[in-house]
Protein backbone atom coordinates (compact mmCIF):
# COMPACT_ATOMS: atom_id res chain seq x y z
CA UNK A 1 0.00 0.00 0.00
CA UNK A 2 1.29 3.45 -0.95
CA UNK A 3 0.94 6.71 0.95
CA UNK A 4 -1.49 7.76 3.65
CA UNK A 5 -5.15 6.91 3.81
CA UNK A 6 -7.71 9.35 2.49
CA UNK A 7 -11.06 10.08 4.12
CA UNK A 8 -12.95 7.49 2.09
CA UNK A 9 -10.49 4.81 3.17
CA UNK A 10 -10.89 5.82 6.78
CA UNK A 11 -14.70 5.66 6.56
CA UNK A 12 -14.52 2.23 4.94
CA UNK A 13 -12.21 0.98 7.66
CA UNK A 14 -14.48 2.42 10.34
CA UNK A 15 -17.47 0.50 9.06
CA UNK A 16 -15.66 -2.58 7.87
CA UNK A 17 -15.28 -5.86 9.67
CA UNK A 18 -12.08 -6.67 11.52
CA UNK A 19 -10.88 -9.07 8.85
CA UNK A 20 -11.23 -6.46 6.09
CA UNK A 21 -8.63 -3.87 5.02
CA UNK A 22 -5.73 -5.62 6.70
CA UNK A 23 -3.08 -3.53 4.92
CA UNK A 24 -4.86 -0.26 5.75
CA UNK A 25 -5.21 -1.21 9.39
CA UNK A 26 -1.53 -2.03 9.54
CA UNK A 27 -0.75 1.40 8.10
CA UNK A 28 -2.99 3.04 10.67
CA UNK A 29 -1.00 1.48 13.47
CA UNK A 30 2.25 2.77 12.03
CA UNK A 31 1.24 6.23 10.80
CA UNK A 32 0.43 8.79 13.55
CA UNK A 33 -1.08 11.24 11.08
CA UNK A 34 -3.54 8.69 9.71
CA UNK A 35 -4.28 7.46 13.22
CA UNK A 36 -5.06 11.03 14.28
CA UNK A 37 -7.38 11.48 11.32
CA UNK A 38 -9.08 8.18 12.11
CA UNK A 39 -9.61 9.38 15.67
CA UNK A 40 -11.02 12.63 14.33
CA UNK A 41 -13.42 10.69 12.14
CA UNK A 42 -14.57 8.57 15.08
CA UNK A 43 -15.03 11.71 17.16
CA UNK A 44 -17.08 13.37 14.43
CA UNK A 45 -19.26 10.29 14.12
CA UNK A 46 -19.92 10.29 17.86
CA UNK A 47 -20.79 13.97 17.77
CA UNK A 48 -23.16 13.46 14.85
CA UNK A 49 -24.88 10.59 16.63
CA UNK A 50 -25.12 12.64 19.83
CA UNK A 51 -26.55 15.62 17.97
CA UNK A 52 -29.19 13.45 16.29
CA UNK A 53 -30.09 11.71 19.54
CA UNK A 54 -30.33 15.02 21.38
CA UNK A 55 -32.60 16.49 18.74
CA UNK A 56 -35.02 13.61 18.95
CA UNK A 57 -34.68 12.98 22.67
CA UNK A 58 -37.67 13.13 24.92
CA UNK A 59 -37.40 16.06 27.27
CA UNK A 60 -39.61 15.77 30.33
CA UNK A 61 -38.78 19.29 31.40
CA UNK A 62 -39.86 20.58 28.03
CA UNK A 63 -43.10 18.66 28.16
CA UNK A 64 -43.85 19.88 31.66
CA UNK A 65 -43.17 23.44 30.69
CA UNK A 66 -45.51 23.00 27.76
CA UNK A 67 -48.24 21.73 30.03
CA UNK A 68 -47.72 24.76 32.22
CA UNK A 69 -48.80 27.36 29.70
CA UNK A 70 -47.31 29.00 26.69
CA UNK A 71 -45.62 25.94 25.35
CA UNK A 72 -48.87 24.02 25.36
CA UNK A 73 -50.49 26.72 23.31
CA UNK A 74 -47.62 26.50 20.88
CA UNK A 75 -48.13 22.76 20.59
CA UNK A 76 -51.83 23.24 19.92
CA UNK A 77 -51.07 25.85 17.32
CA UNK A 78 -48.56 23.65 15.58
CA UNK A 79 -50.43 20.38 15.76
CA UNK A 80 -54.16 20.41 16.29
CA UNK A 81 -54.89 23.82 14.87
CA UNK A 82 -53.04 22.96 11.71
CA UNK A 83 -54.95 19.71 11.40
CA UNK A 84 -58.21 21.52 12.09
CA UNK A 85 -57.33 23.99 9.36
CA UNK A 86 -56.82 21.16 6.91
CA UNK A 87 -60.12 19.51 7.84
CA UNK A 88 -62.01 22.80 7.64
CA UNK A 89 -60.43 23.65 4.32
CA UNK A 90 -61.32 20.23 2.96
CA UNK A 91 -64.92 20.60 4.10
CA UNK A 92 -65.26 24.06 2.55
CA UNK A 93 -63.73 22.90 -0.73
CA UNK A 94 -65.99 19.84 -0.79
CA UNK A 95 -69.08 21.94 -0.18
CA UNK A 96 -68.07 24.40 -2.88
CA UNK A 97 -67.49 21.63 -5.39
CA UNK A 98 -70.83 20.01 -4.53
CA UNK A 99 -72.62 23.35 -4.95
CA UNK A 100 -70.89 23.95 -8.27
CA UNK A 101 -71.90 20.51 -9.50
CA UNK A 102 -75.52 21.11 -8.48
CA UNK A 103 -75.54 24.46 -10.25
CA UNK A 104 -74.02 22.91 -13.35
CA UNK A 105 -76.73 20.27 -13.34
CA UNK A 106 -79.40 22.98 -13.44
CA UNK A 107 -80.41 23.34 -9.81
CA UNK A 108 -81.45 26.84 -8.81
CA UNK A 109 -82.55 28.01 -5.39
CA UNK A 110 -86.34 28.69 -5.61
CA UNK A 111 -87.64 32.04 -4.33
CA UNK A 112 -90.53 31.84 -1.82
CA UNK A 113 -93.68 33.40 -3.25
CA UNK A 114 -96.41 35.05 -1.18
CA UNK A 115 -98.72 32.25 -2.27
CA UNK A 116 -96.50 29.65 -0.69
CA UNK A 117 -96.32 31.66 2.50
CA UNK A 118 -100.09 31.83 2.61
CA UNK A 119 -100.47 28.13 2.02
CA UNK A 120 -97.92 27.36 4.68
CA UNK A 121 -99.87 29.48 7.12
CA UNK A 122 -103.20 27.90 6.25
CA UNK A 123 -101.95 24.38 6.65
CA UNK A 124 -101.68 24.89 10.38
CA UNK A 125 -105.16 23.47 10.93
CA UNK A 126 -106.06 19.88 10.06
CA UNK A 127 -108.96 21.02 7.88
CA UNK A 128 -106.70 23.18 5.80
CA UNK A 129 -104.10 20.45 5.43
CA UNK A 130 -106.79 18.00 4.31
CA UNK A 131 -108.16 20.48 1.83
CA UNK A 132 -104.75 21.33 0.41
CA UNK A 133 -104.22 17.68 -0.29
CA UNK A 134 -107.24 17.77 -2.56
CA UNK A 135 -106.19 20.65 -4.78
CA UNK A 136 -108.49 21.30 -7.66
CA UNK A 137 -107.56 20.08 -11.08
CA UNK A 138 -108.58 22.47 -13.77
CA UNK A 139 -108.07 21.76 -17.43
CA UNK A 140 -105.79 18.93 -16.57
CA UNK A 141 -103.44 21.14 -14.50
CA UNK A 142 -103.17 21.23 -10.77
CA UNK A 143 -104.00 24.70 -9.49
CA UNK A 144 -104.15 25.92 -5.94
CA UNK A 145 -107.66 26.50 -4.59
CA UNK A 146 -107.04 29.87 -3.01
CA UNK A 147 -106.14 33.28 -4.26
CA UNK A 148 -105.10 34.24 -0.78
CA UNK A 149 -102.46 36.32 0.91
CA UNK A 150 -101.37 35.79 4.47
CA UNK A 151 -100.05 38.14 7.12
CA UNK A 152 -97.68 36.02 9.18
CA UNK A 153 -97.44 38.68 11.91
CA UNK A 154 -101.13 38.80 12.69
CA UNK A 155 -101.67 35.22 11.51
CA UNK A 156 -104.58 36.37 9.35
CA UNK A 157 -105.33 35.11 5.86
CA UNK A 158 -106.97 37.30 3.27
CA UNK A 159 -108.92 35.96 0.30
CA UNK A 160 -112.06 36.43 -1.76
CA UNK A 161 -115.17 34.77 -0.42
CA UNK A 162 -115.59 32.81 -3.63
CA UNK A 163 -112.51 30.85 -2.60
CA UNK A 164 -112.92 30.54 1.12
CA UNK A 165 -115.83 29.10 3.00
CA UNK A 166 -116.64 31.35 5.93
CA UNK A 167 -117.58 28.52 8.28
CA UNK A 168 -114.75 26.09 7.82
CA UNK A 169 -112.15 28.35 6.32
CA UNK A 170 -111.91 26.01 3.36
CA UNK A 171 -112.55 26.70 -0.27
CA UNK A 172 -116.04 25.98 -1.42
CA UNK A 173 -116.27 24.82 -4.99
CA UNK A 174 -118.88 26.38 -7.19
CA UNK A 175 -119.64 29.35 -4.93
CA UNK A 176 -120.21 32.64 -6.64
CA UNK A 177 -117.74 35.43 -6.41
CA UNK A 178 -119.10 38.47 -4.58
CA UNK A 179 -115.98 40.54 -4.73
CA UNK A 180 -115.92 40.87 -0.97
CA UNK A 181 -112.79 40.06 1.02
CA UNK A 182 -112.63 37.32 3.61
CA UNK A 183 -110.49 37.64 6.72
CA UNK A 184 -109.58 34.34 8.35
CA UNK A 185 -107.74 33.69 11.58
CA UNK A 186 -107.01 30.32 13.24
CA UNK A 187 -109.45 29.52 16.04
CA UNK A 188 -109.22 26.80 18.64
CA UNK A 189 -110.40 24.02 16.36
CA UNK A 190 -110.98 25.72 13.03
CA UNK A 191 -110.36 28.85 11.00
CA UNK A 192 -112.68 31.75 11.77
CA UNK A 193 -113.51 33.83 8.70
CA UNK A 194 -115.54 36.93 8.08
CA UNK A 195 -116.11 38.87 4.87
CA UNK A 196 -115.39 42.52 4.41
CA UNK A 197 -119.03 43.30 4.92
CA UNK A 198 -118.90 41.94 8.47
CA UNK A 199 -115.77 43.95 9.22
CA UNK A 200 -117.61 47.20 9.17
Amino acid at each position, binding site marked *: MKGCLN*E*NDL*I*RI*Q*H*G*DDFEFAAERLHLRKCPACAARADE*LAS*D*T*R*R*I*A*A*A*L*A*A*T*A*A*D*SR*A*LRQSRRAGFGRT*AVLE*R*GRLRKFGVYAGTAVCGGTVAFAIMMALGWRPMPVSPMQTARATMTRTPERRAHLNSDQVTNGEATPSYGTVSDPVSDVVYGENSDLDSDSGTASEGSEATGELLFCAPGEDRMLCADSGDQG
Partner: protein
Amino acid sequence: MLNAMRNAGIMAGNPSDDDALYRAHHPRILRLCRMMLGNRDDGDEVAQEVFVKMIGQRSRGPEPANWSAWLTRVAINGCRDRRRSGWWRWWGRDGRELLDSDLTTLRHAEDLAISRQEQGAVWRRFRKLSPRQQEVFVLRHVEGWATREVAEALNLSAQAVKLHLFRATHRLREAVRSES
Protein backbone atom coordinates in the same frame (compact mmCIF):
# COMPACT_ATOMS: atom_id res chain seq x y z
CA MET B 1 -50.58 4.18 28.56
CA LEU B 2 -50.14 0.59 29.61
CA ASN B 3 -52.89 0.91 32.21
CA ALA B 4 -55.25 2.24 29.56
CA MET B 5 -54.44 -0.70 27.30
CA ARG B 6 -54.92 -3.13 30.13
CA ASN B 7 -58.29 -1.64 30.98
CA ALA B 8 -59.32 -1.82 27.36
CA GLY B 9 -58.60 -5.53 27.34
CA ILE B 10 -55.73 -5.20 24.92
CA MET B 11 -53.09 -6.28 27.33
CA ALA B 12 -52.47 -9.85 28.31
CA GLY B 13 -49.71 -11.64 30.11
CA ASN B 14 -47.85 -10.51 33.16
CA PRO B 15 -48.39 -6.77 33.60
CA SER B 16 -45.14 -6.30 35.44
CA ASP B 17 -43.23 -7.70 32.46
CA ASP B 18 -45.07 -5.33 30.16
CA ASP B 19 -44.29 -2.43 32.43
CA ALA B 20 -40.64 -3.41 32.61
CA LEU B 21 -40.39 -3.73 28.85
CA TYR B 22 -42.16 -0.44 28.36
CA ARG B 23 -39.95 1.40 30.83
CA ALA B 24 -36.80 -0.14 29.44
CA HIS B 25 -37.44 0.54 25.78
CA HIS B 26 -39.92 3.38 25.46
CA PRO B 27 -37.44 6.30 25.59
CA ARG B 28 -35.21 4.65 23.01
CA ILE B 29 -38.07 3.72 20.68
CA LEU B 30 -39.60 7.17 21.03
CA ARG B 31 -36.30 8.81 20.16
CA LEU B 32 -35.80 6.44 17.24
CA CYS B 33 -39.26 7.13 15.79
CA ARG B 34 -38.88 10.87 16.16
CA MET B 35 -35.50 10.71 14.53
CA MET B 36 -36.76 8.66 11.62
CA LEU B 37 -39.85 10.76 11.06
CA GLY B 38 -38.47 14.14 12.05
CA ASN B 39 -41.72 15.04 13.73
CA ARG B 40 -42.71 14.90 17.37
CA ASP B 41 -46.40 14.00 16.98
CA ASP B 42 -45.89 11.34 14.34
CA GLY B 43 -42.96 9.86 16.23
CA ASP B 44 -45.03 9.62 19.39
CA GLU B 45 -47.88 7.96 17.52
CA VAL B 46 -45.69 5.36 15.85
CA ALA B 47 -43.90 4.62 19.14
CA GLN B 48 -47.27 4.03 20.77
CA GLU B 49 -48.27 1.69 17.96
CA VAL B 50 -45.02 -0.22 18.47
CA PHE B 51 -45.91 -0.96 22.08
CA VAL B 52 -49.45 -1.92 21.17
CA LYS B 53 -47.91 -4.47 18.80
CA MET B 54 -45.56 -5.60 21.55
CA ILE B 55 -48.54 -6.33 23.77
CA GLY B 56 -50.25 -8.22 20.97
CA GLN B 57 -47.11 -10.23 20.39
CA ARG B 58 -46.87 -11.08 24.07
CA SER B 59 -50.45 -12.28 24.16
CA ARG B 60 -50.15 -14.32 20.97
CA GLY B 61 -46.65 -15.63 21.49
CA PRO B 62 -44.03 -16.86 20.87
CA GLU B 63 -41.99 -14.11 22.41
CA PRO B 64 -38.91 -12.98 20.50
CA ALA B 65 -35.53 -13.83 21.95
CA ASN B 66 -34.43 -10.21 21.84
CA TRP B 67 -37.13 -7.67 22.59
CA SER B 68 -34.81 -4.76 21.87
CA ALA B 69 -34.15 -5.91 18.32
CA TRP B 70 -37.82 -6.83 17.79
CA LEU B 71 -39.07 -3.45 18.97
CA THR B 72 -36.48 -1.63 16.90
CA ARG B 73 -37.45 -3.57 13.81
CA VAL B 74 -41.15 -2.90 14.36
CA ALA B 75 -40.41 0.78 14.95
CA ILE B 76 -38.39 1.04 11.75
CA ASN B 77 -41.14 -0.68 9.77
CA GLY B 78 -43.77 1.54 11.38
CA CYS B 79 -41.82 4.66 10.43
CA ARG B 80 -41.39 3.35 6.92
CA ASP B 81 -45.13 2.73 6.58
CA ARG B 82 -45.85 6.20 7.88
CA ARG B 83 -43.47 7.77 5.38
CA ARG B 84 -45.07 5.84 2.54
CA SER B 85 -48.58 7.00 3.34
CA GLY B 86 -50.11 9.50 0.96
CA TRP B 87 -50.96 11.77 3.84
CA TRP B 88 -47.32 11.96 4.87
CA ARG B 89 -46.15 12.73 1.35
CA TRP B 90 -48.81 15.36 0.88
CA TRP B 91 -47.97 16.97 4.19
CA GLY B 92 -44.28 17.24 3.24
CA ARG B 93 -42.63 16.59 6.58
CA ASP B 94 -39.10 17.87 6.59
CA GLY B 95 -38.11 17.61 10.23
CA ARG B 96 -37.85 21.34 10.81
CA GLU B 97 -40.51 21.27 13.49
CA LEU B 98 -38.65 18.79 15.66
CA LEU B 99 -35.42 20.70 15.42
CA ASP B 100 -37.03 24.01 16.29
CA SER B 101 -38.93 22.64 19.24
CA ASP B 102 -36.21 20.54 20.78
CA LEU B 103 -33.20 22.76 20.81
CA THR B 104 -33.40 22.92 24.57
CA THR B 105 -32.58 19.22 24.89
CA LEU B 106 -28.90 19.59 24.30
CA ARG B 107 -27.54 18.40 27.60
CA HIS B 108 -25.89 15.33 26.13
CA ALA B 109 -24.77 17.16 23.03
CA GLU B 110 -23.23 19.96 25.07
CA ASP B 111 -21.03 17.40 26.77
CA LEU B 112 -19.50 16.82 23.38
CA ALA B 113 -19.15 20.54 22.71
CA ILE B 114 -21.71 20.61 19.91
CA SER B 115 -23.06 24.03 19.17
CA ARG B 116 -26.68 24.58 18.32
CA GLN B 117 -25.73 25.69 14.85
CA GLU B 118 -23.80 22.50 14.38
CA GLN B 119 -26.68 20.44 15.69
CA GLY B 120 -29.02 22.20 13.31
CA ALA B 121 -26.69 21.63 10.39
CA VAL B 122 -26.33 17.94 11.24
CA TRP B 123 -30.07 17.51 11.58
CA ARG B 124 -30.86 19.28 8.32
CA ARG B 125 -28.29 17.20 6.49
CA PHE B 126 -29.60 14.04 8.12
CA ARG B 127 -33.12 14.80 6.87
CA LYS B 128 -31.76 15.08 3.34
CA LEU B 129 -30.36 11.56 3.44
CA SER B 130 -32.40 8.79 1.89
CA PRO B 131 -34.66 6.92 4.34
CA ARG B 132 -32.49 3.85 4.05
CA GLN B 133 -29.34 5.79 4.83
CA GLN B 134 -31.06 7.35 7.82
CA GLU B 135 -32.12 3.95 9.14
CA VAL B 136 -28.71 2.44 8.67
CA PHE B 137 -26.85 5.32 10.28
CA VAL B 138 -29.17 5.53 13.26
CA LEU B 139 -29.05 1.81 13.95
CA ARG B 140 -25.29 1.62 13.55
CA HIS B 141 -24.13 4.78 15.31
CA VAL B 142 -26.98 5.95 17.53
CA GLU B 143 -28.26 2.54 18.60
CA GLY B 144 -24.81 1.03 18.49
CA TRP B 145 -25.67 -2.09 16.54
CA ALA B 146 -23.09 -4.09 14.65
CA THR B 147 -23.17 -3.95 10.88
CA ARG B 148 -24.33 -7.56 10.70
CA GLU B 149 -27.27 -6.85 13.05
CA VAL B 150 -28.28 -3.82 11.00
CA ALA B 151 -28.20 -5.91 7.85
CA GLU B 152 -30.40 -8.59 9.40
CA ALA B 153 -32.88 -6.10 10.77
CA LEU B 154 -33.29 -4.25 7.50
CA ASN B 155 -33.06 -7.29 5.22
CA LEU B 156 -29.99 -5.92 3.51
CA SER B 157 -26.62 -7.41 2.68
CA ALA B 158 -23.66 -6.38 4.81
CA GLN B 159 -22.09 -4.73 1.79
CA ALA B 160 -25.20 -2.66 1.16
CA VAL B 161 -25.20 -1.55 4.79
CA LYS B 162 -21.56 -0.51 4.53
CA LEU B 163 -22.27 1.42 1.35
CA HIS B 164 -25.17 3.27 2.97
CA LEU B 165 -23.04 3.97 6.02
CA PHE B 166 -20.22 5.28 3.88
CA ARG B 167 -22.47 7.73 2.04
CA ALA B 168 -24.32 8.84 5.15
CA THR B 169 -21.14 9.40 7.15
CA HIS B 170 -19.56 11.29 4.30
CA ARG B 171 -22.50 13.69 3.98
CA LEU B 172 -23.04 14.18 7.68
CA ARG B 173 -19.39 14.86 8.25
CA GLU B 174 -19.52 17.55 5.59
CA ALA B 175 -22.17 19.28 7.66
CA VAL B 176 -20.02 19.11 10.79
CA ARG B 177 -16.98 20.45 9.01
CA SER B 178 -18.89 23.25 7.29
CA GLU B 179 -20.09 24.48 10.68
CA SER B 180 -16.74 24.17 12.38
